[in-house]
């Protein structure tokens, strides 16, 4: 019998029409068993936890899946559609995505930052240029103040939407705080390349233009919108006697001088005060300049805000960390630093940040000798030039979830507004501003989630529900360990500014991408198709719709739902579809 593709109903009107013996003459396709169904399976991608956690709103699962197929250029394009700094972020981001990764329970989280870096390095090696958008040019001029990650991300996304963008930067070169990240973590070449790619799209960058000095807010009235991304450039002070002595050098000032190639005389013994990434950067840089470095931190290891790997690398390089110590005075001789008076600290009740509050132990003070003291206690924004119309609160510019300040069309983002303090968060903030400015100028409504969540330029259709480990069908996953990343040995590192982490090669990156569960995201494993008893799952018409249900026959058994390894199929009550 030839295979039938359409339902045929057979009606015998006389005995003569019937076959000689009871043999079938048509298929069961006449019987639409879909009417039995009270639960309906639906292909609906869910939110992977990594994507939900990425401050820059990258579609991590999608670029991993493209990498898994060896489609590196497309993977990179997926990445830069949301974030123009994959080379930077792949190296310096604290990767909150990996903390949420469901692979953690079966061999360790996917090394997402290494994958991101691999794609950026691949694009550089193959001279890939940023994909251009085919949108009409718009006449509106937009001013972006500050060429840090937030400002450049905003400029990039606005330019891709067709706007004319001018970025005003106070420093000599664009890059902002990214420029102060030491060479051994982020080679300048990587930063320069990614900035140059943005400029190549037609973004104008004017350096040496400090807002409040070289230019005032009222000079920007010709612009259709202004985005303030001025960052936090003023170092927090120690607030102890002697802090203005020669030999006290704030962390970012020290790093800036090294970056500019200026000679810095540190002497022999250096104290770095603080427990964040700037403290680690300053300590490791001082170590490379030949100093004997001690980090003094007022809380314990658990409270340190620096990235865990950074702390390990710092210790490996022979930097000492003394916990529960705080300076009470900088000791001076002839106006020069000669040491520190320190007090021991106990941890009290948790404070507003949720960390335990440091309390000095009475009578525990002692003195240590140092030639240089580098405080790295974080920075605050310089907001003195702002007019009263742009309101601030506790050192930050007030914005709503659309990055709008109290004075439209002025928008603000990055550290000066959010205080999130990472490159990746700033990239996300700049993108949010670009989308908000576009909505504002075109008068269109667009949903903006809370500032703690991310935004995407090109979101795939997906359900907001985040996939957790217990949602997965782990029968289809083996436990496979996460491959380590090659590192330069510590003894070699302290003599040079060459990059510490060496990244993944292609073989490792490919294998690592294949280890991804692809949470909530169909990757055509075929389980639903293969396990359907009723042949009611068919291959779909396109990559966006790899499978379709034949609801004429699907009985709603739910096997496809429970055998989907990655929760990319929902099960909904049929009654909800009755009126369709």
């Amino acid at each position, binding site marked *: *019998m030839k*295979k*039938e593709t359409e*339902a045929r109903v*057979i009606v*015998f009107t006389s005995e003569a029409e*019937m*076959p000689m013996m*009871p*043999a*079938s*003459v*048509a*298929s*069961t*396709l*006449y*019987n*639409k*068993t879909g009417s*039995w*169904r009270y639960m309906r399976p639906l292909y609906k991608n869910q939110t992977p936890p990594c994507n939900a956690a990425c401050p820059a709103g990258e579609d991590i699962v999608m670029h991993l*899946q493209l990498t*898994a*197929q060896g489609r590196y250029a497309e993977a990179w394009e997926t990445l830069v559609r949301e974030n123009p700094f994959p080379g930077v972020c792949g190296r310096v981001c604290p990767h909150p995505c990996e903390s949420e990764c469901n692979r953690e329970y079966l061999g360790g989280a996917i090394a997402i930052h290494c994958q991101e870096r691999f794609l950026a390095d691949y694009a550089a090696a193959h001279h890939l240029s940023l994909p251009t958008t085919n949108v009409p040019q718009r006449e509106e001029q937009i001013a972006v103040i500050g060429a840090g990650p937030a400002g450049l991300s905003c400029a990039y996304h606005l330019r891709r939407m067709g706007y004319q963008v001018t970025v005003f930067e106070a420093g000599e070169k664009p890059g902002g705080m990214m420029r102060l990240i030491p060479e051994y973590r982020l080679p300048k070449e990587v930063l320069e390349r990614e900035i140059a790619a943005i400029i190549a799209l037609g973004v104008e960058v004017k350096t040496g233009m400090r807002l409040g000095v070289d230019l005032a807010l009222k000079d920007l009235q010709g612009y259709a919108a202004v985005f303030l991304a001025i960052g936090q450039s003023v170092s927090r002070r120690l607030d102890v006697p002697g802090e203005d002595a020669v030999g006290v050098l704030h962390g970012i000032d020290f790093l800036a001088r090294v970056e500019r190639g200026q000679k810095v005389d540190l002497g022999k013994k250096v104290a770095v005060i603080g427990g964040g990434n700037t403290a680690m950067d300053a300590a490791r840089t001082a170590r490379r300049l030949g100093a004997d470095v001690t980090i003094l931190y007022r809380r314990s290891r658990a409270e340190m805000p620096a990235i865990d790997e950074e702390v390990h690398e710092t210790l490996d390089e022979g930097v000492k960390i003394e916990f529960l110590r705080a300076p009470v005075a900088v000791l001076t001789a002839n106006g020069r630093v000669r040491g520190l008076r320190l007090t021991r600290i106990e941890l009290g009740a948790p404070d507003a940040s949720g960390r335990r509050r440091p309390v000095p132990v009475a009578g525990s003070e002692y003195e240590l000798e140092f030639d240089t003291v580098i405080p790295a206690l974080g920075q605050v924004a310089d907001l003195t030039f702002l007019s009263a119309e742009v309101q601030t609160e506790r050192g930050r510019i007030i914005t709503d979830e659309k990055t709008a300040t109290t004075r439209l069309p002025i928008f603000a983002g990055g550290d000066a507004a959010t205080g999130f303090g990472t490159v990746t968060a700033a990239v996300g903030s700049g993108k949010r501003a670009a989308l908000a400015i576009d909505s504002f100028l075109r008068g269109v409504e667009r949903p903006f989630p809370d500032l703690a969540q991310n935004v995407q330029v090109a979101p795939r259709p997906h359900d907001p529900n985040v996939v957790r480990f217990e949602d997965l069908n782990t*029968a*289809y996953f083996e436990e496979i360990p996460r491959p380590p990343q090659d590192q330069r040995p510590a003894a070699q590192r302290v003599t040079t500014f060459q990059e510490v982490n060496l990244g993944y090669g292609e073989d490792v990156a490919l294998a690592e991408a*294949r280890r991804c569960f*692809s949470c909530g995201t169909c*990757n*055509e*494993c*075929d*389980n639903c198709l*293969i*396990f*359907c*008893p*009723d*042949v*009611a799952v068919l*291959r*779909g*018409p*396109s990559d966006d719709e*790899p499978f379709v249900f*034949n609801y*004429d*026959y699907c*009985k*709603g*058994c*739910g*096997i496809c*739902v*429970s*055998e989907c390894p990655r929760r990319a199929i929902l*099960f909904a009550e049929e009654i909800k579809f009755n009126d369709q």
Partner: protein
Amino acid sequence: MREPKTYARNYEIPEEELTYSGSVSCPGCGATLAMRYALKALGSNTITVIPACCWSIIAGPFPYSSLTVPIFHTAFETAGAVSSGISAALDVLGKKDITVMAWAGDGGTFDIGLQALSGAVERNEDFIYVCYDNEAYMNTGIQRSSATPWMAWTTTTPVEHPKEEPKKDIVAIMAAHRIPYAATATIAYPEDMIAKFRKAKGIRGSKFIHVLSPCPPGWKSEASDSIKLTRLAVQSKVFPLYEIEHGDKVTINVWPKDGGVPVKEYLRLQGRFRHLSEEAIAAIQAEVDRNWERLVVRAQRVMGNE
């Protein structure tokens, strides 16, 4: 039609579908899925023989069929005899490239059809006999068969008097006939199942394949759990996947991962075992472990000789 992507695929399985949608099997029916795999493996040059069983109904009411290949509906006890006859007729006609597959339930195999089956395989007739085993007479209302497991509920073995006899070891009975090929298979392992059907197709003589097929109404299990249940049946060693060639050479095809899972995980998903006491579960576990060890010893003897 789009070509399937292969980078994330879990299986290599033929694309061609030889079963139709619209059959009247219950949602989540293991036997329906088993037929789909079997025909994918054997191809369209196949004649099926179906005695009285669930599949007599699933195959469609007159004048409809849910298969693209010919079906002979026959009496309950006759699958072995009818298959022998078709095989002989094909031989007379000189048609050597057609596979004859008897497709019977556990009632038609373990109980009612055993005599005809034994006779046919003793003569080493050239056909594949498949028993899709849902462990009771499901189609007539869940009466116990000799394939029903010890202590299981059925309508004729109610919880006050659950079944007191252990499940008959049908593969051992078939192997005792020294047939060229006897194997177990199940729907959670489609590649293993398809490989076994293909292997059977390539062998002349009698082949027997025992397929564990969940029945959500009869097992009192969730329709969506049918794959999970058979996976657990294999991983808990309740239903090991193995093959026996010429009655002697035993090969275990799927070794439980990390030493397997307790039988309790398999039993607790099925309402027919809900009444089991901890002692009964422990007794089942002990029996399963004993059978598994015996199987491993037989398989290792083969491995040692090779």
